[in-house]
């Protein structure tokens, strides 16, 4: 059996008394797509940041093609190689873009850094076109773009690096459904053409259904359910997964009832000593 593309082994990370990530393991095969769903504050972003190397783990290991990812890169070459292993698109595009740098300049810098021998210009146009941004966006500054346009810049920049693993943290949430459909189709095409793997964090179970093969459900730092996406969504085993599915807006949707069900799911269980600031979050 070939080594899996990405492996997380028993990751742990605490902030003070908060166990943000509490023993998370998963495997992403070459060309695979793994979804991470779960409540607000359940540790999804922290897990992603550990995988990318933006956050250190208190314990556990991240392996890419069987090799442990060193916690720190030495020198330029190693840093670039590391960046090509894993790229991330963040939940908050505003923060990840330099407010003084134009969109085409962002891409040009990234391409020059990683592919100094190639002419960046045709690739810049290709990337902008792929994420559905026109020429006005190309020389705009981040604040002159709408939320969804900024997010597409961030996606284009991550794709420019041609990473082995792309981590998308709520990367399509800010997009309207037609642009979202274009981006999801683009990601599907890239996955067909290359061995890239996706780690897809999203609150939208419809998106999970559409773009992932497997899914893990997180709650309070732990994985409560894992399996093939189609199976987990069709026959959820954990009550929390069932609550998530019931919460998706649909005809006859009753937010009061969901809020009550959520409280109920919390109450019979002991309150954790660590509280994550989310008092009413299911424990």
């Amino acid at each position, binding site marked *: 059996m070939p080594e899996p593309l990405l492996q997380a082994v028993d990751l742990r990370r605490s902030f003070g008394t908060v166990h943000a990530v509490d023993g998370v393991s998963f495997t992403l095969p070459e060309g695979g797509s793994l979804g991470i769903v779960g409540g607000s504050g359940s540790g999804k972003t922290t897990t992603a940041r550990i995988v990318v190397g933006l956050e250190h783990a208190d314990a556990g290991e991240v392996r890419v093609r069987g090799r442990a990812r060193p916690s720190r890169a030495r020198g330029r070459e190693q840093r670039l190689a590391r960046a090509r292993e894993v790229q991330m698109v963040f939940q908050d595009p*505003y923060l990840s873009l330099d407010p003084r740098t134009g969109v085409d300049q962002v891409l040009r810098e990234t391409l020059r850094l990683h592919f100094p021998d190639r002419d960046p210009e045709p690739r810049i146009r290709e990337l902008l076109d792929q994420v559905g941004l026109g020429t006005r966006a190309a020389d705009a500054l981040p604040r002159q773009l709408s*939320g969804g346009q900024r997010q597409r810049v961030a996606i284009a920049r991550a794709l420019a690096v041609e990473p082995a693993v792309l981590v998308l943290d709520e990367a399509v949430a800010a997009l309207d459904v*037609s642009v979202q459909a274009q981006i999801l189709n683009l990601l599907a095409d890239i996955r067909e053409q290359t061995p890239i793997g996706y780690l897809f964090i999203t609150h939208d179970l419809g998106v999970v259904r559409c773009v992932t093969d497997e899914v893990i459900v997180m709650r309070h730092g732990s994985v409560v359910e894992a399996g093939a996406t189609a199976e987990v969504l069709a026959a959820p085993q954990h009550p929390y997964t069932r609550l998530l599915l019931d919460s998706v807006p649909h005809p006859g949707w009753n937010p009061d009832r969901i809020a009550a069900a959520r409280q109920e799911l919390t109450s019979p269980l002991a309150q954790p000593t660590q509280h994550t600031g989310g008092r009413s979050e299911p424990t």
Partner: protein
Amino acid sequence: MTRGPMTRPPRPASANGSTASANGSTGSTTTLDVRGLRVTLPGTARPVLDGIDLTVGSGETVALVGESGSGKTLTSRSALGLLPPGATTEGTVLVEGHDVLAMDADRLRALRTDTVAMIFQDPRAALNPLRRIGDFLTESVCSARTGDRAMGRSAATARAVELLDAVGLDDSALKKYPSQVSGGMLQRVMIAAALMGDPALLLADEPTTALDVTTQAEVIALLARLRERFGTGLLFVTHDLDLAAAISDRVYVMYAGRIVETGPAETLFARPRHPYTAALLASTPRLTTPGGRLAAIPGQPPDLRTPVTGCAFAARCPLATEVCDEHAPAPLQVSEGPVHLAACHHSDRLVGEGSAVDA
């Protein structure tokens, strides 16, 4: 939740604000009345907002959906008098009968603390990372208000704790910095902040996009209670059509700076009469959608540098004919009963077909 000292008496809830006229008095049941709003940005070839007509009655929930970059955020920000630098405007934006675009800085400040609140799309961009969440929540009601509307610090803190509780956060959040809480928690802080001043009009720009579905449900339940008890008008910008259908009375669909369709949520989603609305519905990934490709709309909306003659959707529309390139379609009533307008030359071709447009 119990209310703080700033509780205002409930306003009469109106059934539908769209027919109410702006008579300049605060007794109007139309909380927000945008008429013919046209906004042009420097260095562009067409208005970024091109004749927007939109109303929100008191106690009414109105959804604004549409293409990324179509102007949803600009439209909602106009109700706060916040437009990009250098923008030129035509038309009026009336909030409780008063024209926001004609207000001086003092009136605008009062408007933003007492009458209109906004939940921004990008919470981290709207927050100072060096200020604690507690200070952020209390500063607007403590400092910006004057006279009898000013609030003491301890009253403001009590109110902040109460609202944090209502959005499912405990008071430990007060002492935290924005970087120490997750994206969904921060968005709930923003929602609490918007409710601090008991607004008559709440502009919510994708307020639940960063939230998981169960938290989203809780926030929606909270907003629904608010509107029932205080007659708050809610303009809800969202990309989630199923959510828009579930929570709103009326819906506006925007494309390239124009309202292309508006009507009661139920009718509009069940029987869309504009090809863009139909295409949006078709491209939504649902739990029942099989894996694989989605029905994306090919192409892109027109750039702001490109002038648009005719219908802005023509280049991407499966029903487009010559007339579409030449003449901009005017919004016309397309079904019997309540106001349901579609700006499309061929909207009759969508009758009875549901989401007839595919990619």
